[in-house]
């Protein structure tokens, strides 16, 4: 029953707050309710009123009404803290699976000051604090990631309890933009042994490897650089050189090199390798089914490789899909299967 209500409520909110990277808080999408201390305060006011009635004490009546009116005034103030505030998702961060990925958000206050504002996603919350009228403040909200791929929190909650903490006004932002989460690096077994053997194994492989270029017919997704254009000119057949051997060379990090391992594990191995190579600054290329990144070096190249590893086989979440993506929370509740495992 409560689940039904909750899902209804969820749908109602999702209709009310469409996905967007920019959220202007207005009466349409701001919610306000008393907090637990606020409810107790209400009970206290009731007790005070009964005291006033019993002792026929006008001043107790007066102070009860005064505090009741202050409560209503606080409702106004609490609402105004957020009303007119514009929340923008400025930048999504990157990181390895399991880490907290930073989402940079900017809160621009409207014509009223935004006071004591907190952003939260699940358990993590970040205090923005005070944003004077007409100014803006940037804040980085860490979102816990569960696995590699695209990461998009379902809802980022923005809340204030100012002035008295008796009421809370809140709203949600449902961002479109996604962060990219790299596969968690796992030390690759192959390389562990390579390190033991030293240069010898690597050098003994590379000369013979060059001869083992296997030829196969062209298929969809192969890069044009790989097509044997000379052969095409001769025979008219699109033949692709499969650089089997080339990929065995230390310059190439190959998805197919880890036979028997799960896809995700392979990606984690590759991720570790990319990080290692990136650290040492050596040249390397990345071969993934359907995607090949030519050998290069430097941090930009490493990031590019990591990104390719992160989104391999993943589909970018569409705007219309309301489901959260890749956050730890959704995984824990088991509502959604791990997308990579299906492939």
């Amino acid at each position, binding site marked *: 029953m409560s689940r039904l209500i909750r899902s209804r409520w969820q749908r109602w909110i999702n209709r009310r707050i469409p996905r967007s990277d920019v959220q202007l808080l207005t009466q349409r999408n701001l919610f306000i309710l008393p907090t637990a201390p606020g409810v107790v305060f209400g009970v206290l006011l009731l007790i005070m009123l009964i005291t006033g009635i019993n002792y026929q004490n006008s*001043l107790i009546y007066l102070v009860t009404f005064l505090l009741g009116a202050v409560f209503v005034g606080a409702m106004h103030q609490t609402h105004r803290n957020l009303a007119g505030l514009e929340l923008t998702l400025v930048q999504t961060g990157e990181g390895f699976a399991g880490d907290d990925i930073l989402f940079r958000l900017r809160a621009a206050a409207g014509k009223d000051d935004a006071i004591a504002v907190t952003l939260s996603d699940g358990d993590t919350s970040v205090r923005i604090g005070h944003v004077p009228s007409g100014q803006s403040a940037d804040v980085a909200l860490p979102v816990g990631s569960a696995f590699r791929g695209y990461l998009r929190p379902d809802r980022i909650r923005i809340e204030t309890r100012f002035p008295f903490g008796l009421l809370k006004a809140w709203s949600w932002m449902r961002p479109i933009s996604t962060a990219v989460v790299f596969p968690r690096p796992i030390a690759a077994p192959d390389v562990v042994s390579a390190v033991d053997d030293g240069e010898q194994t690597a050098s003994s492989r590379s000369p013979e490897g060059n001869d083992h270029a296997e030829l196969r017919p062209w298929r969809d997704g192969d890069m044009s650089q790989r097509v044997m254009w000379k052969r095409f000119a001769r025979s008219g057949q699109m033949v692709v050189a499969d650089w089997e051997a080339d990929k065995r060379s230390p310059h190439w990090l190959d998805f197919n090199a880890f036979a028997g391992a799960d896809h995700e594990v392979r990606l984690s191995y590759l991720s570790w390798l990319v990080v290692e190579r990136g650290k040492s600054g050596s040249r390397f290329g990345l071969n993934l089914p359907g995607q090949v990144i030519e050998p290069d070096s430097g941090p930009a190249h490493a990031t590019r490789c990591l990104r390719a590893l992160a989104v391999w086989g993943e589909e970018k979440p569409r705007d219309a899909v309301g489901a959260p993506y890749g956050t730890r929370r959704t995984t824990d509740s088991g509502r959604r299967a791990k997308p990579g495992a299906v492939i």
Partner: protein
Amino acid sequence: MSFWNRSQQEPETQSDTLPSRALLWLMVSFALLLTPQFDRLPVWLMAVCVVLAGWRWLAQQGRVRLPGRWLRTGILLALIAVYLIRVQGSFTVDTAASFFVLTVGLKWLETRTARDFYVLFYILVYLATVNFLFHQEVHWALVNIGAIGLLLIGLQVLNAPELPGGMKAGWRRLGVMLLKVLPIVVLLFVFFPRMEPLWSVPLVSGKARTGISDTMRPGDISSLAQSSARAFRVTFGGSMPEYRDRYWRGLILDTLDDGTWRQSGYEPYRRPGRVDLDGGVGELQPQEYDVLMEPTDQRWAFALERSVAVSDNVVKEADDLFRFRRPADSPVRYRLARDNSPEQTVPTLEPGQARRYLQLPASGNPRARALAADLRQSNSEVGVIRSLLSRFREQPYFYTLRPPRMPDNGIDSLLFDDMRGFCAHYAGATTFVLRSAGIPARVVVGYQGGESGAGDEYLVVRQYDAHAWVEAWVEGQGWVRIDPTAAIAPNRIESGLRDAVAEEGSFLENEWASAQRYGDVALIRWASQQLDRINYQWQRWVVGYQGQSQMDLMSRLPGGFGIKELGYLTAGIVGVGLLIAGLISALQMRRGASRDRYGRVLGAWYQLCERAGVPVRSGETPSALASRLAAAEPAVADSARLFARMVNSHYYRPQSKSASARDGSDEIQRMRRLLATMRRQLRKAGKNQRSNPRHLAHSGKLSD
């Protein structure tokens, strides 16, 4: 080891989460709320509170640690033990208040998290409420409300510790908020139906209040004479009586026993009923007078001679005395009227009554008895009284606040040796002599006098106006008032105690801080009178605004309001108030949103696009949107592109303020016209497409 470390460090890290300033305001508020309780609380409790709050403060500063669980429990048990020993099982309002304060004090040691902070907040707000039960003067009301304000400031700091501006900004925000809601508060105060009490707990204090008591030992009233506390205030419907006629009768003492005068009549104990404060409403008739009495915890009311009760909360009992239906544990207003009609019947004294008023101890004071016998031999009843008064007038009797001690046969030593005494001494002695002479007599205790408040609007009677005099039974006339003090010190009766003891200099000699002590300084006198006037009006109109006075006010309004209608009215006020507040805020929001005229036109365009099936995407440029709209609705293609160009030219052309300001309205007009055209075109297109609906919308979606 590690367990201990953690359990000791944990609270400390948590206590850091409370902002120091918030805690400070809470403590200041606590101190402020204790001031009205000052005379009620034992000293040790005050000290404990100070120590505990100080401990908490030092812990906040990081100088000391907050006590661990065991120490805390120990402190708790020790303090409760001390409390129980001190209280010794008597349950009064004072002990309850002490316990309340003790819990707050103990809570200081436990205030670690925001939740504890709120618990303290609730307790302190209720402490302010309890304070209102005992003190209702303007200044105490201000202290209490100010303390609540401080609590609210503390909450603000707790919720936004980083907020700049600190206390000033906090007060300003609170003040603005209060100003906004004040009309509703006032309306609620006036119209909220004052219901009958649901149940009642008597507010009986264990502490003796300053005021006259029902026994009179020589010396009692002279200690009262050193107090300038207010006894009651009176407003007269007609003219005020002369000073010498202001005899406020309170109670009658008729039994002399071991040098002490007491009441013999058994005052039946009334079960404390519901609080009934209705003290009469409407304009005062010329004969009527309205008394606002300070709490005495007693049932007696003070009245002029020959009065009748007007309000329901006082009843006339035997001996022309007035009594409340329940002890006056809070300020009471009641209304009486002077009865000037001549008495119809000749009063008679029943034999039992006569015996009662002739009671004397079997022995003692032989010289006074001899004097009585002497007077009685040569005179009639009236003659005895006359000659006794002239004896007081002619012989060197003194009226003094510093009478000598007269341990044995006090009346004899007063009449024949020392000849120095206070009104109580003389009244007692006179009654003794009259009774010895066979004339029924009784001591009357009450107040005599009272000075005018500001503007001569009302009379203030203070404790130093306490007085004792004598009533004697004269056959054919009834009870006759005899005041020996008038014979000895006419000043006392004509103009008050201050003049009577002016030479002696003993007027309020121990009350340094009393404004009455410096009554001859014009400025102080004026200031204290004005202050008292404000308080009087406050008590009559705000504090005393209760059931009957509310009904009276309502009956003057058209429409005949009953308590039920008042209930509806109150609900209506709350509803309308909330509605108005909501409307105002909605209007403000709208005005804020529509300040930019371009923005409004743009909004209208976006709406139009959405209706045409081309929802706006975030970050889309106007021209991109226009081209999508054109693809979806070819009919409006040209207008849409033109519109997008205009939007672009407005937002992206170089800033030249004067030109843009002048052209602005012109441009807006053209854009509006363009919008209207597009709407028309869309409608037309829609009619044509009715046979083939939703086609365009689809193509619009696919085009992206």
